[in-house]
């Protein structure tokens, strides 16, 4: 098969800092016409820079240092800029990660699409408008004629990404580069956009370079895949072979670190250490120092491509010849099993703590009908004209030493629940009973005494530590404020112990946050929450800003701490797999209300509410064989400012009944723990 795009030895430097960063270092691959090729890797591995180098749209500090990019035999890197502009948008088009930032905010979307049309075709006037409409229809934009005259800020994220796709399709390009096209979107919307991309690609015979960090997306979209690590491609394979048996130790680790239901009892495989700095010249395998199967010469000999199976190649010393590849396969599996064994070996003391807490079945935290409303002020006198019901009557219960997973899409109010019950935002109603005391009626001073029992961990590891405060001082802050540890020495000893507990050396006390990676910062944030010996920790998306391998480390740590300290977690996340791995019970939120709750097994394996069903089916699974029908959810999340009447989900629900539009359903219970709010089960 002849390649449409052939990239050979592409190298890109970023020259912003004191030393040039070799963001892309000798990358070669090719894409056939009509094929979907996925480039997968963790953040900072150079996958986006590869795409931008192909388009020659690098940021100003970037510079292509070598290699060729041939599109149908023509080297794009040798073209003069004016000729390259004819290629962009006409033969190669690109869509970006952040649809919200990638559209011009002060131009109508119609004009932005029209611009792409007129740039490369001779169409004028009404013909352009017709073409724009046709494109908007092609990306299934509802009410396309009206939407044409709207501005990006009037649209939801999913619609903006559709507009981006329409722009990219304007001139029927031969190749579409999609750089993390759904990362910024919610999972139900992601499912819509992925399906759209797949169909468009198929119907137009367009080749696609898909860049993503999500193995699930790869499994559903791509025919071939390449794994990038530290600026180079380390493995390429057809998708089915890759998912059946990833060859490179790094690829394998990526799979093993994915949390899922099968791994619930186990510790996740985490990759030790961090990605090496790309400023240095490599003399050996880039992954050697983090690799469990490293051989003696890995550190000082650069590995060459070795064939694993038909079409699958890896840049690893394990694959010099075929037999060794097979051998190492077995070795990998053996080590994975060892991992399982390690985990089940819980100390007797921990087991005792755990079982005693479990039998003691009264709830630690009981939230009843929690409401957090934000007033909307309008008009001349700024009168309150309405309420944004961010949280509208949420009831939860967490037992000691248990984890309640709170899942939902962005804007559903799950973070506000977490902050509301700690009174970091002021709730407008309801009760939060902690050990029998209602936290919401306490005065500020009385509340302070209770603060040490419940703490919080945040999503963004970069925002959760003050850059101007030393780690030791940050850990001491809570103890000082809440009077834990009477003397400075006592506190210092506690800090050392805390740091050891989260896997950091005691010396880090005197350092500042900027010296730490995202995962390390998250460990520090966990230590800070632990410093006042809480019984409950609200974990607000603690791993969603982290790469999967680091996520695995943090999840492992949280699990271990729960066992040893008998902590209860309110685990807030949009990631089903993580919740499935972490939680004992799950509550699903939609627009400020809980629509279904129960144990993990009940809710995630036997979902009753149509929304839960849709949500679960929309999650991409890292298995190309898994042929599940995706339950399509129409449209986007409505604004919490003006939620639909009755059941909030009914306008998007495929099974909506007449009464759904008028009244909010009562809770139906299926077991002692499993309940949902849906009219479908009214008869039952």
């Amino acid at each position, binding site marked *: 098969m002849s390649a449409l795009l052939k990239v050979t030895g592409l190298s890109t430097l970023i020259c912003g800092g004191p030393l040039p960063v070799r963001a892309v270092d000798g990358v070669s691959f090719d894409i056939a016409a009509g094929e979907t090729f996925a480039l997968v890797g963790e953040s900072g591995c150079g996958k986006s820079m590869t795409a931008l180098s192909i388009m020659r749209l690098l940021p100003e500090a970037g510079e292509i240092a070598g290699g060729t990019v041939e599109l149908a035999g023509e080297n794009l890197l040798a073209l003069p800029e004016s000729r390259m502009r004819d290629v962009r948008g006409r033969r190669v088009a690109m869509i970006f990660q952040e649809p919200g930032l990638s559209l011009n905010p002060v131009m109508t979307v119609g004009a932005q699409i029209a611009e792409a049309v007129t740039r490369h075709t001779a169409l004028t006037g009404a013909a352009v408008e017709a073409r724009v409409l046709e494109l908007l229809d092609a990306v299934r934009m509802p009410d396309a004629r009206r939407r044409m005259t709207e501005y990006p800020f009037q649209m939801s994220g999913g619609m903006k990404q559709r507009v981006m796709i329409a722009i990219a399709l304007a001139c029927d390009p031969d190749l579409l580069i999609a750089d993390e096209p759904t990362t910024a979107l919610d999972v139900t919307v992601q499912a819509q956009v992925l399906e759209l991309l797949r169909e468009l690609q198929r119907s137009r015979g367009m080749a696609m370079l898909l860049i993503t960090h999500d193995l699930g997306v790869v499994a559903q979209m791509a025919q071939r895949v390449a794994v990038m690590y530290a600026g180079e491609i380390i493995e390429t394979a057809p998708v089915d072979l890759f998912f059946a048996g990833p060859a490179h130790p790094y690829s394998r680790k990526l799979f093993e670190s994915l949390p899922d239901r099968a791994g619930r009892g186990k510790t996740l495989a985490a990759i030790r250490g961090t990605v090496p700095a790309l400023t240095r010249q490599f003399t050996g395998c880039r992954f050697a120092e983090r690799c469990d199967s490293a051989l003696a010469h890995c550190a000082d000999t650069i590995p060459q491509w070795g064939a694993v199976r038909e079409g699958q190649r890896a840049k690893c010393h394990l694959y010099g010849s075929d037999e060794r590849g097979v051998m190492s396969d077995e070795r990998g599996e053996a080590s994975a099993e060892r991992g399982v064994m390690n985990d089940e070996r819980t100390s007797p003391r921990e087991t005792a703590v755990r079982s005693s807490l479990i039998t003691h079945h009264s709830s630690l935290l009981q939230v009843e009908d929690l409401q957090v409303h934000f007033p909307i002020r309008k008009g001349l006198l700024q009168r309150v004209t309405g309420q944004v019901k961010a949280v509208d009557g949420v009831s939860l219960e967490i037992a000691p030493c248990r984890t309640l997973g709170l899942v939902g899409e962005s804007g559903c109010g799950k973070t506000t629940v977490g902050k509301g019950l700690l009174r970091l935002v002021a709730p407008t109603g309801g009760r939060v009973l902690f050990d029998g005391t209602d936290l919401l009626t306490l005065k500020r001073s009385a509340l302070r005494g209770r*603060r040490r029992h419940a*703490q919080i961990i945040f999503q963004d590891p970069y925002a959760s530590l003050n850059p101007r*405060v030393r780690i030791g001082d940050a850990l001491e802050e809570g103890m000082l*404020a*809440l009077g834990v540890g009477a003397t400075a020495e006592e506190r210092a000893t506690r800090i050392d112990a805390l740091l050891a507990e989260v896997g950091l050396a005691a010396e880090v006390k005197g350092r500042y946050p900027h010296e730490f990676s995202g995962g390390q910062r998250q460990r520090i944030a966990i230590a800070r929450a632990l410093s006042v010996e809480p019984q409950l920790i609200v974990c607000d998306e603690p791993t969603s800003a982290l790469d999967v391998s680091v996520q695995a480390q943090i999840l492992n740590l949280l699990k271990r701490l729960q066992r040893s300290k008998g902590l209860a977690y309110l685990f807030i996340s949009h990631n089903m797999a993580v919740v499935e791995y972490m939680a004992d019970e799950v509550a699903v939120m939609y627009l400020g209300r809980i629509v279904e709750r129960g144990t993990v097994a009940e809710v995630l394996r036997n979902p009753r509410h149509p929304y839960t069903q849709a949500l679960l089916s929309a999650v991409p699974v890292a298995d190309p064989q898994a042929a599940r029908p995706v339950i399509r959810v129409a449209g986007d999340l409505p604004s919490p400012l003006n939620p639909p009447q009755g059941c909030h989900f009914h306008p998007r629900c495929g099974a909506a009944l007449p009464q759904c539009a008028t009244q909010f359903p009562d809770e139906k219970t299926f077991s002692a723990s499993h309940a949902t709010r849906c009219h479908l089960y009214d008869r039952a």
Partner: protein
Amino acid sequence: MMPFIVEWLWSDALVWLLVVAAIGFALYTRRHPHLRAPWARVARSASGMAAATVLAAFVLVGLMDSLHYRAALPQQGGKTAYATEVRSLLDRVLEPLRLTREKTYSAPLATHLYAKETVQLQDGTEARVFPRLRHGGAHLKDPQADWCLDVAMKAFRGLTFGLLLWFVVAIGICAAVARGRDAGIEMVWRDAWAGRTEVPWRAVFCALGLLCILIGPVAALAPYYHVLGTDKVGQDVLYQALKSIRTGLVIGTLATLVMLPFALVLGLMAGYFKGWVDDLIQYLYTTLSSIPGVLLIAAAVLMMQVYIENHAELFPTTEIRADVRLLALCVILGVTSWTGLCRLLRGEALKLREMEYIQAAHAFGVSHWRVMMRHITPNVMHIVMIALVMDFSGLVLAEAVLSYVGVGVDPSMISFGTMINSARLEMAREPMVWWSLAAAFVFMLTLVLAANLFADAVRDAFDPRLIVGGRS
């Protein structure tokens, strides 16, 4: 008995307080790597370091002019009496310039007055001639013949001395760097010129060299000539220009310093507490900033003038009066310019209060006061630092305009504004007198340009993304 008593003017006290604070801040910064990092970036900027070198020279002059004393008068009886005039260290150093007053205008390096006078010749007749200067070139027997050679010789000697001084200082710097790096002086010297050192010493050496080349000849000539001529009342222009530096520096630094506490406290409170506190503070600064700056200053200065005139007894000497007026001007300039910084800080505090580390502090029940002190204030200090250096040049320029309008410094105080104001009509004079203006122009341009370049380096180092300006 002492030969003098030190006289602390209010502005001196504040200037030295500022110096002490700056040194303290520098020592504190040295020990904190995250505070040191942006300054290290400043130190890597070639233009910034060259500008800093020039600024250092200006600051040196300004500081010398901020040590005031009153000299002891010749003793009468057992008691020591002190002069009523307050002089500064700079005045003492520049005594040859200060005391050598001519009658009226004389051109730079001239030996004769710039205006003809009727003099009685020895034979009793009267003639209109350019009379010899009392001091400028007075040592020459035959100015026509000797002037050129004398000036050239003295300039050359000064130049040699200047270059020597430059070399000594440059080698000194290299030696200091070499000690820190454990390398040879020669090696550092060569690295510096090849641009291989982390701090661009080459730029510093160049700026320093330029300064030495200029200062050397001027210093050599100044005792014998009026290097920049004299003004209408015969005062040396170079002396005036040097004296103007302190005025500019004081206004440029103290005005921002005066407003800093208000801007910081109010801006952070508005952003952190929101609600009615925010409304009140916003109202306050909208009201103040709605009055056009010059008019507000004019109104306030007028009122101050009336106050000083009516309470003459509070200000015994002209120096003290001029000094109080200078300080008052700083306060007023500060009041009119704090709104911009206040707005910036409010915006930043609004952003910071939502940061997760502050939420974490709230989850510990940390008090508002502590959150503000520990978590918010240190994270806005870069904005304060940028505002401090960015405002400096604007204030120096504003002083000139205000003094021209008549609401600036006291007319008896030498400043760039008063220099320009008294010289502005001289351009229309025939023949034209250009040197006063030219001197003011060159000194001011150098000071402001150096300040601007340094401010740019600081801004880039502290926050490259912050756009300064915006809604004023």
